């Protein structure tokens, strides 16, 4: 099947070359970090996790969101998602892969990561996160391979893959739940210490992941003959509308609990996030942009006539991805550290080199995604010809 990725248009090769160049830049920068240590990032004593761990958290959501097409298609036999399912599964694979890479580049001693397996520690949530993430990656590789081969041969998927598909549904929920547990199980960090963190992560994942999938499906339709179908896109738009509404509701619950209860230790974090603390407010403009994008997305998604217009849907999806990336990929992790348990307000902003490494990982994910989508669309085009 891989041979389908070896022939392509000029545009395809240009895209691959551009992504590859970014991967090389990221890799070279990572080698600097490997030599010098994590000191070349913007991280500090007070803010020990930043851009890398935030991207990991955001991308776990993207990976988990594949379940939003897998569940209707395989469990409820919702036929309209027939073509979208493969795009969803093929998005989950690079998303998981990027998650693992973002964890890896965050390690102070990357040569020793195998210690997690050599000394398995069930009382550490990070141990479980490693298991569910790698498991989910494996599940998606196995499922997409089996179903895609069957489809290519014009057969229904083999019987043995059905239970694996069913298993992948709760597994998708588990990856984001366990990732939330990484944070919400820490008494030291009141900002994360909330039982709603896992549901909130899932809601934002089920908004941002399908939004990304809509954007990708529409892009694929533009550049290839692969059409996921108008009905499928519209249905996915509806899912985004629900996901986004529930997410905003959950954020509201958090803000109510913090401010109405009046507990200073929770209020301080939210204040830092949206207004700044002691003159430090690097995240505040971003968070207000996120709120504005959320409001815009909500209006565009909730009015059916607007949502069903694909051009409007594109704007709504861009707004959702932007809003939730800022929320999860920028604000959520860092704010847990500001103020610190000793009351220090230390700000964090990624350094240029840190951003290049992150960009390199995104480019590598994009490269895998492009190759997988190339295979999927070429095979489809051949089947339809």
């Amino acid at each position, binding site marked *: 099947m891989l041979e389908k990725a070896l022939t392509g248009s000029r545009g395809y090769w240009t895209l691959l070359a551009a992504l590859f160049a970014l991967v090389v830049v990221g890799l070279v920068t990572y080698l600097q970090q490997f030599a010098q*240590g994590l000191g070349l990032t913007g991280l500090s004593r007070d803010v020990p996790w930043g851009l890398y761990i935030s991207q990991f958290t955001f991308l776990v959501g993207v990976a988990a969101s594949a379940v939003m097409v897998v569940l209707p298609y395989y469990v409820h036999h919702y036929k309209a998602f027939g073509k979208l399912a493969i795009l969803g599964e093929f998005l989950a694979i690079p998303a998981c892969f990027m998650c693992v890479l973002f964890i890896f580049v965050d390690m102070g001693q990357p040569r020793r990561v195998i210690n997690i397996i050599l000394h398995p520690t069930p009382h550490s949530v990070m*141990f479980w996160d490693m298991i569910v993430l790698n498991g989910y990656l494996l599940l998606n590789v196995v499922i997409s391979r089996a179903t895609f081969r069957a489809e290519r041969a014009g057969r229904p998927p083999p019987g043995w893959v059905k239970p694996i598909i069913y298993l992948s549904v709760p597994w998708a929920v588990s990856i984001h739940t366990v990732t939330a547990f990484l944070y919400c199980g820490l008494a030291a960090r009141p900002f994360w210490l909330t039982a709603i963190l896992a549901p909130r992560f899932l809601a934002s994942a089920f908004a941002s992941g399908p939004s990304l999938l809509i954007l990708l499906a529409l892009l694929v339709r533009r550049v290839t003959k692969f059409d996921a179908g108008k009905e499928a896109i519209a249905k996915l738009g509806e899912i985004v509308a629900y996901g986004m509404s529930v997410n905003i509701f959950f954020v509201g619950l958090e803000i109510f609990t913090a401010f109405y209860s009046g507990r200073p230790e929770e209020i301080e974090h939210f204040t830092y996030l949206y207004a700044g603390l002691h003159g430090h407010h690097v995240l505040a403009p971003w968070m207000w942009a996120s709120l504005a994008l959320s409001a815009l997305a909500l209006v565009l998604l909730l009015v059916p006539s607007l949502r069903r217009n694909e051009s409007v849907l594109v704007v709504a999806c861009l707004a959702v991805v932007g809003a939730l990336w800022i929320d999860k990929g920028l604000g959520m992790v860092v704010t847990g550290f500001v103020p610190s348990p000793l009351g220090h307000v230390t700000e964090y902003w990624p350094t240029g080199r840190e951003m290049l490494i992150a960009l390199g990982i995104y480019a590598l994910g994009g490269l895998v995604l492009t190759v997988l989508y190339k295979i999927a669309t070429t095979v489809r085009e051949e089947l339809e010809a």
Partner: protein
Amino acid sequence: MKRRSFLKIAGLGLVGACGVPVAQAMARAGSTAPAPNASNGKRWAMVIDEKKCLTKSGCQACVLACHKGHNVPTMSESRHDVKWIWKEQFVNVFPERVTPYTPAAMKERPTLVVCNHCDNPPCVRVCPTQATWKRPDGLVAMDEHRCIGCRYCVTACPYGARSFNWEDPRPHIVGELTDYPTRTKGVVEKCTFCAERLAVGKRPLCVEACEGIGCGALVFGDLGDPNSAVSALVRGSELGRRKPELGTSPHVFYIL
């Protein structure tokens, strides 16, 4: 002889050849019995007498002794600081003991902080490699050789007691001592209650330094021994502990 069986025998031979030195090394490793003069505590603990400590304004004796004795680096950028024991403003250590009417001088008074060697340490719970663990004698120990540098423990500690080596610490060590190991970049370290000194019957460096200047604000000992000085202090005075509401049960006590 078939190729298959030859490979089998050759493989076994190779394992044997490698196995002998490994077994010898393991036999040597097995002979690390505790030193005859080791201090064997049931539950090590520390009491910090704030009142005594405050009588020596600007004193850094314990901090310097600890950091010197443990090859703790002096980083050029404060955001990369490594600290085992240091002074914080009182308001940051015991925020619940400050009122809106507390005078600034009291709020800002320097208060000593170290790893609390908790009974229920969150850092140990979250570590994915057991590079940090709870010893039966109460110490929260740290193996910098196993640490993968994920900083989950730094995130989980409610006391800010853990430091990560953001860069190679060795060029930043002033007057490196050869009798204590240095660390590498990318690992976490913290106060160990001087496990290496307890193992040979000595008391922690900070405690000795504090006594050395005639202050005696730091008292260290075994709570399992009813006759120890710490046992007498925890029974006889009203003591503070940092963030007891988190359920960590710190074993550094404060006379405030």
